């Protein structure tokens, strides 16, 4: 079974530039999550999709971050404009149904450095 795919693996940009990350979840998984993991901290949920609808985006900084999952499969997370404090690893995860007992399967992450 193929895992969660993410690209790019690494990205270096200057502040005020824009950047986009892509995620393809495990086939058949209805729920997709984007997390931000700052160095030395645990992952923090940014947004959760159920199929192509948003379930929770309460911790997404909506003035600069946006995400979409148009066809209920793959997803894109965008930052525009980036700030220094956005330097982090951005993790995508998926789960079968989104139930609180579901296992979330994580991708390798995209490491973003903002200079």
């Amino acid at each position, binding site marked *: 079974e193929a*895992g*969660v795919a993410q690209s790019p693996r690494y990205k270096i940009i200057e502040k005020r530039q824009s950047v986009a990350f892509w995620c393809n979840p495990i086939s058949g998984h209805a729920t997709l*999550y984007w997390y931000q993991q700052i160095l*030395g*901290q*645990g*992952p*923090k*949920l940014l947004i*959760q999709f159920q199929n192509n609808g948003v379930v*929770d985006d*309460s*911790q997404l900084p909506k003035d600069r971050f946006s995400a979409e999952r148009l066809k209920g499969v793959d997803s894109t997370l965008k930052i525009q404009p980036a700030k220094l404090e956005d330097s982090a690893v951005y*993790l995508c*995860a998926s789960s079968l149904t989104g139930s*609180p*007992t579901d*296992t*979330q*399967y*994580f*991708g*390798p*992450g995209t490491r973003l450095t903002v200079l």
Partner: protein
Amino acid sequence: AQSVSQHNHHVILSEAASLELGCNYSYGGTVNLFWYVQYPGQHLQLLLKYFSGDPLVKGIKGFEAEFIKSKFSFNLRKPSVQWSDTAEYFCAVRGNNDMRFGAGTRLTVKP
């Protein structure tokens, strides 16, 4: 709001030593509890989870964890660690909403 506290930032053990990593959470309702592990250069992956039933849960690679509701704790244990257990370990809690992770504990096992 939910929160998760992992007491140890970095633990160093010799092979064959016993391991216990602490995890405490703050949440008033029904919780689902997880331990994830990240081996060097690899993805986060599930070690074990608890959502009901026997509070002592067994996971992969000989790990187990005990849910103690009165102490709001879900500590991870392994009786004898191996060099290959060197990794970062994250405790996570999920109520009805989002999953909250602790800051992680880095485990280094010396051969």
